[in-house]
């Protein structure tokens, strides 16, 4: 074995190495070290279990992200299939509009949810006019859920539509000719074909929801999602070690989801947002 190619590559690896160390490794190590060097030492990592506010925040964020992902996948699959299979006037415009939420930062999405379900929101006014009760949901789990769904669906639906367009219609027709009902065709033919797209976009959807800050920041008054808790810990409570450990945990959970998705689908999955 010759080492020459490697030696020749060395100079080229140096800039890449420096970038990696400076912008990726150092902050990560620092984060991990900071987490362990507070008053509590390494025990800070256990704080996520011993501090109710922390683990409640973790659980709430997980539940929110998982349910947003599940519902986004369901709605997007149905809507995506419908949009691919049906030609109707205004379809192009609708598809273009579906990508619109991607252009909004989290703050704006939070604002939209408040306009919809806040104290002066549309739903509140209508419900008051109809029943005399003002329905307000923007500042609860429901508000977060709707906000997260709003920015998740476009990501998923575009992936689903791309996959559904590639589906050979003859596959479905073959299944039907063999006696398969609509439900069986969905389960046996369509979903398997969409599976890689569902896994990839589901993972991105989950990762984005876990890390979303802007929407939660605008809305959250009653529940803290993990990124909010991290923010509160180091700005208001000056609990740098706590914030660092929570950050590491958030990073690990998200990375794990993406890793599992990548090994399931074989495709490259990258988090965004």
């Amino acid at each position, binding site marked *: 074995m010759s080492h020459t190619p490697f030696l020749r590559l060395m100079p080229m690896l140096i800039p890449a190495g420096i970038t990696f160390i400076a912008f990726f490794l150092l902050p990560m190590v620092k984060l991990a070290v900071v987490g362990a060097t507070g008053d509590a030492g390494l025990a800070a990592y256990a704080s996520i279990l011993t501090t109710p506010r922390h683990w409640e925040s973790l659980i709430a964020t997980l539940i929110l992200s998982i349910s947003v992902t599940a519902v986004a996948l369901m709605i997007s699959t149905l809507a995506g299939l419908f949009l691919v299979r049906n030609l109707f006037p205004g379809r192009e415009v609708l598809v273009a509009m579906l990508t619109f939420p991607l252009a909004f930062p989290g703050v704006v999405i939070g604002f939209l949810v408040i306009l919809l379900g806040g104290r002066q929101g549309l739903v509140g006014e209508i419900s008051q006019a109809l029943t005399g009760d003002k329905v307000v949901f923007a500042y609860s789990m429901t508000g977060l859920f709707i906000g997260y769904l709003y920015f998740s669906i476009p990501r998923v639906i575009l992936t689903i539509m791309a996959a559904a367009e590639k589906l050979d219609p003859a596959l479905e027709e*073959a299944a039907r000719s063999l006696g398969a009902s609509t439900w069986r065709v969905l389960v046996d033919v369509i979903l398997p*074909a969409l599976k890689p797209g569902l896994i990839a976009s589901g993972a991105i959807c989950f990762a984005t929801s876990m890390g979303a800050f802007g929407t939660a920041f605008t809305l959250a008054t009653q529940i803290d999602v993990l990124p909010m808790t991290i923010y509160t810990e180091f700005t208001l409570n000056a609990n740098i070690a706590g914030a660092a450990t929570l950050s590491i945990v958030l990073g690990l959970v998200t990375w794990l989801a993406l890793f599992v998705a990548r090994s399931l689908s074989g495709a490259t999955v990258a988090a965004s947002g």
Partner: protein
Amino acid sequence: MSESTAVHIRQCAKTFADGTRALAPVDLEIAGGETVVLLGPSGCGKTTLLRIIAGLETADAGGQVLFNAQDVTALPVEKRNVGMVFQSYALFPNMSVRENIAYGLRVRKHTRSQRAQRVAEMLSMMHINELADRAVSQLSGGQRQRVALARAIAVRPRVLLLDEPLTALDALLRERLRIEIDSLLRSLGITAIYVTHDQAEAMALADRIVVMSQGRIAQQGTPRDVYQNPQNPFVADFIGTVNRLRGTLTEHGVHAQGTLLPLGKGLTVSATKEVDLLFRPEDMRIVPAEEAQFIGTVSSAFYLGDRTRLLLAGIGDAPVMVEVSAREPIARGTEVGVSIDPQGLMMMPGTPS
């Protein structure tokens, strides 16, 4: 084996949502166990008619499809019990060969052992035993189409519908699989409707050929009938090769290019009229000049191995194609005399020039 299924198609037309008239009202009777080939150029409505029979497309109001006495017009494809084979194979990529073949049986809730037995039967019938546990992606085109056939037949469909099943395969494989399909259809005795644009395939497989043109049936009959007695210029042109000469029909015979050709026996003519004379390359012979009906100059000669195809200029407006045995070479520029076998002479109403 259960009784075979006759298919009756009554006044089935199809206008697509965008206004395309794919099919004029078509009537077609297919006997139980018969192999009917729908033949015609691309876009003539073959697939549309097949899909109406399958239940994948609904005919315009007024059209009716019957399987024996049962009106299936309103039944969707999953209730019609038809087997389908597609040009693109349409095998389920997430299932093995075995699972593909068993799929229809699984949907019909056959027991595990019934399924295993039937799949084994199908595998050996299509000579693909060794492929049973392969993934679809590991199969060649020919193997895929064998699996697709096995999958379609496994559920014992009432009618087998095949849409250009061999078109995606290379010539040699196409021929081999065509022979296999032929013997399969004969041994099963199943009613089969086979769509193709390849006339050689149609001739080889069909009990009856239905030639289609622009959404209509141009002619139907046995392969021999359609080839030897085309009823209109479209069919004559589409099936095999024909030469065409303009002529005048009189009580003495047909005058064409200064030659009087005798009429076939039993033909009487009441009035003079313009006709097109049609004859096939293999119905012409090279003869000595003094016996010849026409003299032409060889403008091209194609040596095909088993025969030679000559193009003769100077007889009609277009070159006349003649097929001769390949023994002695004929050079370009040679003058040759030809005569037409009276048996092979076909006449159509003249096309105005």
